């Protein structure tokens, strides 16, 4: 957070700070503060770094992530994201490192589709590959306001298993020049291989973003 405050005046940098809740019946219920910095180059490259701190359960560092993106102009506006995530649960002495890549296209205006792969390296646990997917549709978009519905198992600090189907809304509200209020919700619906469907993990956050 200190880094973000120092970097705030720098042009080309976006900084954000969010407060959230993450809960899963019988598993965990924690608060989450996250802060991030994003920068871009020529509308082609982006670099995003985020860190999270949890409270209530697992107090302390919840994880960090570094994601680089390459966006190409032209047919379908393809983009490639690659990154690293580290998530930890201090109360259980458990953590997981992840390396991932996600290819995304925009077949229509306001519609994004992505598919990728992730290598999970849990501790304790066994390394494994996971499929990533992303569907996004910007339902509403005005100069002041946007609302996007998403189905994706990849978020900035988190990567869910493919059978969890996290669905939710991302909204933004322009507060003032350079300032954006944003909110995210995700409700994960397990599961595919059981044939039985039920809501499991819930995540909600609200934050502000500043950029020049």
């Amino acid at each position, binding site marked *: 957070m200190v880094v973000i405050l120092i970097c705030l005046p720098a042009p080309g940098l976006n900084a954000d700070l969010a407060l959230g809740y993450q809960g*899963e*019946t*019988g*598993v*965990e219920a924690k608060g989450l503060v996250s802060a991030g910095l994003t920068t871009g180059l020529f509308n082609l490259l982006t670099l995003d770094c985020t860190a999270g701190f949890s409270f209530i359960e697992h107090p302390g560092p919840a994880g960090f992530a570094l994601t680089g993106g390459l966006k190409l102009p032209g047919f379908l506006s393809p983009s490639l994201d690659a990154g690293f995530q580290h*998530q930890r*649960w201090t109360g*259980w*002495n*458990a953590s*997981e490192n992840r390396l991932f890549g996600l290819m995304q296209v925009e077949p229509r205006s306001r519609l994004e589709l992505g598919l990728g*792969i992730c290598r999970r390296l*849990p501790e*304790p*646990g*066994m*390394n*494994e*590959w*996971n*499929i990533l997917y992303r569907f996004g549709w910007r339902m509403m978009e005005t100069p002041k306001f946007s609302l996007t519905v998403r189905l994706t198992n990849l978020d900035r600090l*988190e*990567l*869910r*298993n*493919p*059978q*969890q189907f996290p669905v939710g809304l991302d909204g933004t509200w322009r507060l003032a020049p350079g300032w954006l209020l944003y909110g995210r919700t995700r409700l*994960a619906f*397990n*599961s*595919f*291989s*059981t*044939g*039985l*469907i*039920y809501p*499991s*993990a819930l995540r909600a956050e609200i934050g502000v973003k500043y950029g020049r």
Partner: protein
Amino acid sequence: MADRLLLLLLLLTAGCEIDPRAVLLHPDVETRVRQSLDCILLPETFPDTLRFAVFSDLHIGKPAGSHWQTFVRCLDSLDINFFCAAGDLTDRGTVAEYDSVLALFQHTHRHYYVTLGNHDLYRPNSWNYYQTRFGPSCYAIRPSLHLKLIFLDTGEGRLGATQFRWLETELSSPEKYKIIITHFPVYDDQTPSIFRLGSVAERAKLLSLLRKYRVYAWCAGHRHGLRHQQIDGTNHFLTGAISRTLDFGAPGFLLFEVQPDTVTWRFVPLTD
């Protein structure tokens, strides 16, 4: 609205074994676990030295059939005291399939302990069919002084709050060997797959409990075949399927041999 939802489910589940009404109407894991924990189990007495088999995925009702008769012959030839089934006893969770499974099990004249799998919940009344024939889906037994077998209900691919609390209580007891028998594996292989416990956080929490309480083995099914991995001192098994429909490997079961001070295991393949 409800009609449209049911129609959507019908379309999504067309061609599958599941009755779409079961998606909405079956009692969830919390209900099943609470009902299971209300059951009173009478303790059985076993000798100090004993053998028991663990298998999964019998899928009675599946046209491909199973290796059940070969397994029954092994019960005698290997002098197995009791057997445990880690779910998917039936293919579609119908009353006829449950009756068939019960008849098969009773015909062995052995003690048996079971828990359920996702296929065992594929009809709206499947839980009732299971409960009236087999009792609880979540319970623990102590066949010998230093061995505890803990049966978990992961029919939906999750444990739920009540079962998690109960599990930790059961794990905190002093037996040297604790073996968990359930349907879903925590891990199975490194390839992309959906056949594992669904939640990343739930898996992390479980592994921390298995480590903390030095659990000897997690025996699961769901995927049909045998796999064995050791994670943090705990043996993680896909126990091998009795069903003739295999995902990999050979059909078979796990055989545990209990001596006064030790527990050992080996895989017994089933061939006709």
